[in-house]
């Protein structure tokens, strides 16, 4: 022990002296660690959390969500619904790209056109017909049909430097091509209007950013001059890096370490209720019993969502009885988790399954927080209504293939709406499966209710947001009554930082930290 302290002390001293020159520069550098680095610098290449987080660092959207689900003007300063399918948007003046090129309406049109080409984004932007350039700082977005979600989509429009990305590379390739896991120009070169420029990138190792001197938002309180992003895949190591002072900001934070970080006075923990719903599907095609709504309801009554959230997730989840989390327009406050074991048994008996039956269940084991454990808990709960569960858990790389094949009677999935909108849940998870239109792509229950489908279609054409919200709440009620699936909870989010890094104002439930506005205080 003695020698250890001496050794540690000696080496620690060496480390400190090596670190000193850096702090002497009096530059505010944020060292951060996510569980993975962005797979590409081309923000249209993949629709994922990592890429969107990068987008908010190097680019600006037309509008962005505030913590209260309002729209905050960024590169779009005003907007006006001119007619049913046309929205006129005024763009901010005096904005420059990292390359030096000025930001104009051309860039917006170019960007949307590229989004419609992107395999990942095209589905979201399908309702948009085209973007017209009215003048240098005005555009009109034309939708194919009345589009209540236009502003939602606008949060994904991060204008790219069209001049920078035009033309051909030395190798004769188009600079604007979108290539999956690309070696494309855009995947390695980046120019946006955002607060940070990329100065260095080693895939899988680090990305270095520097504050853009000509950044338009001079009112932003953010004082971070440089950012170093290193991926740390292993949860324990990421937390250790924060606790040892090697990094200043980490996300995600594993639930096991929440208390530890909170109790440490040199670190800061921020948690928030999330928007990713974790649920189980009951496959009606595979199991006849699931066609009977009483059986499905019984299953819902048998599951103790609050128990799971409380004891398994240690309070790091919000129990759910529907798709939409609070704050979404479709969130129905009347719907509460229902746990009633007696009622469950009653319903099973009514349906003629008093002796229960057996089902197969599959869940991933490295995708969602405590996913395998949750599946085991659910299996145990179902045992109480005489349902024997044969559970198999798989790593996510293998799980999704099985999911596509609908390989088990009950399958777990977690879903987060790309558009931050309620209808999205139904569209992918409970719409009548239709290979042509892509409806119900992840509907592993093979649940089909044409009335509810129509309700969703109507809601998506309803431009009056009040009315739309009502319809969506009705949709949730319908799914609840029909026990279309078994909702479990919404995963919470957590971020941790060094005590002098004030992350609370810049994080939000979408998990897009607005690092441009981040303030690092004096120690």
């Amino acid at each position, binding site marked *: *022990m*003695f020698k*250890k*302290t001496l050794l*540690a*002390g000696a*080496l*620690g*001293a*060496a*480390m*400190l002296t*090596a670190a000193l020159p850096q702090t002497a520069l009096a530059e505010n550098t944020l060292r951060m660690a996510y569980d993975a680095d962005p*797979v590409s610098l081309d923000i249209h290449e*993949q*629709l*994922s959390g990592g890429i969107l987080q990068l987008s908010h660092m190097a680019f600006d959207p037309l509008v962005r969500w505030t913590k209260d689900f309002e729209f905050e003007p960024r590169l779009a300063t005003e907007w006006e619904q001119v007619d049913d399918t046309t929205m006129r948007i005024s763009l901010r003046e005096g904005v420059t790209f990292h390359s030096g090129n000025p930001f104009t309406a051309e860039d917006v049109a170019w960007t949307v056109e590229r989004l419609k080409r992107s*395999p*990942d984004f*095209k*589905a*979201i932007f399908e309702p948009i017909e085209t973007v017209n350039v009215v003048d240098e700082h005005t555009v009109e977005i034309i939708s194919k049909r009345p589009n209540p979600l236009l502003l939602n989509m606008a949060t994904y429009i991060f204008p790219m430097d069209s001049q920078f990305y035009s033309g051909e590379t030395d190798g004769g390739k188009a600079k604007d091509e979108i*290539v*999956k*896991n*690309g*070696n494309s120009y855009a*995947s390695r070169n980046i120019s946006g209007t955002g607060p940070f420029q990329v100065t260095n990138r080693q*895939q*899988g*190792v680090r990305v270095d950013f520097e504050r853009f001197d000509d950044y338009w938002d001079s009112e932003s309180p953010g004082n971070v001059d440089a950012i170093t992003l*290193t*991926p*740390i*895949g*292993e949860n*324990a*190591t990421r937390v*250790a*890096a924060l*606790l*040892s002072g*090697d990094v200043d900001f980490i996300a995600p934070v594993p639930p096991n370490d929440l208390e530890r970080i909170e109790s440490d006075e040199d670190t800061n923990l921020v948690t928030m209720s999330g928007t990713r719903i974790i649920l189980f599907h009951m496959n009606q095609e595979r199991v006849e019993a699931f066609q009977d709504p009483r059986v499905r309801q019984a299953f819902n009554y048998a599951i103790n969502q609050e128990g799971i959230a409380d004891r398994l997730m240690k309070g790091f989840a919000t129990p759910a009885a529907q798709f939409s989390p609070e704050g979404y327009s479709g969130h129905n406050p009347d719907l509460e988790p229902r746990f009633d074991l007696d009622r469950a048994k009653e319903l099973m008996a009514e349906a003629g399954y008093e002796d229960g039956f057996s089902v197969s269940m599959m869940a991933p084991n490295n995708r969602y927080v405590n996913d395998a454990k949750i599946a085991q808990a659910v299996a145990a709960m179902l045992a109480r209504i005489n349902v024997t569960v044969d559970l198999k858990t798989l*790593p*996510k*790389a*293998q799980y*999704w*293939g099985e999911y596509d094949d609908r390989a088990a009677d009950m399958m777990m999935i977690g*879903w987060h709406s*790309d558009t931050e909108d309620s209808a999205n849940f139904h569209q*992918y998870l409970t719409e009548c499966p239709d*290979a042509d239109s*892509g409806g119900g*792509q*992840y509907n592993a229950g093979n649940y089909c209710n044409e009335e509810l489908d129509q309700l969703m279609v109507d809601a998506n054409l309803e431009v009056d947001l009040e009315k739309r919200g009502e319809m969506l709440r009705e949709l949730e009620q319908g799914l609840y009554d029909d026990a279309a699936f078994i909702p479990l909870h919404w995963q919470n989010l957590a971020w941790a930082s060094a005590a002098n890094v004030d992350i609370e104002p810049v994080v939000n439930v979408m998990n897009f930290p607005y690092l441009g506005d981040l303030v690092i205080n004096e120690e």
Partner: protein
Amino acid sequence: MIAFLIKRLFHALLVMFVISVIAFAIQDNLGDPIQQMVGQSVPESEREVLREELGLNDPFLVQYFRFAVNAAQFDFGYSYIYNEPTTEVVLRHLPATLELVFASTLLIIFLSVPIGVYSAIKPRAWLSRFFMGVSIIGISIPVFLTAIVLIQLFAIGVSFTPFPADTGWGAWLNGLLSTEGGMPAYGRGDPVHVFGTWTTNFASLEGLTYLVLPAISLASIMLPLFIRLIRAEMLEVMQSEYVKFARAKGISMRRIYFLHALKNTMLPVITVGGVQIGTLVAYTILTETVFQWPGMGLMFLDAIERSDIPLIVTYLMIVGLIFVITNTLVDLIYGLVNPTVKLTGKPA
């Protein structure tokens, strides 16, 4: 000698061939790379297009044939994740792993020989018993646990305060038991570029501090084995007739221990230990994961999670090659050290 090396080269090719066939055969079970590449909302039609583009729908033999033809020209395919030739990806990650293994090997050699010899010479001394006990613990504790504990103790720091902190002596004792932390918790820091893809941690004191904890973790897997091996061999050797004879000649014990006995002891240690060190190159996975060390192990885990089949196949083949190279080197070294054996492996 040349014949020997050529035979080994042939072995290497055979090993790599077999591995590649197996890896290709099980690729369906390795997962769907498309799933890892696209977002959740991308419709099936888009995925099919991608699948076609990447040639994932072709039958096994076609895919393998394509691969083999390319492999013969040293083109092992393009990694799905990095979209670069897999050989480049592997080469980029190789130096980090090699440096880590090298550092661990140094630690193992410089610790196991003195400890092993000492434990054999004085088997009943309390220090020997202590080392044997610790080595049992070392074998039983999984490497990632060792790694995490090291990080906790030396990167974060731990304070034990069983003694009253307000007294002078209490505080001093507490200080002895606690650790300061301060070592880097992860990564390689800023390695210095040497040439090609080789960046090194050995160029500066700071670079070395990043190497310390991971090297200790990795060494902890093998160190107990080596200590016990050297001790057991040495104990046996000390019973031999030639040691007795050396004593009867009046040779000093020091010379007997470190020349007569040690040289014979090291023969099986080289054989067994040499191959183990070779396997270290392949099994840095856990250590690299905990320390986020950007070497081949981390790259491989990533490739598995993202179902990057070309990279997985290339990695496995390279590892097969490393095994053959290591075995060959061990045989060569053994042949040099043991005069009763000719290099071809046949007794002289």
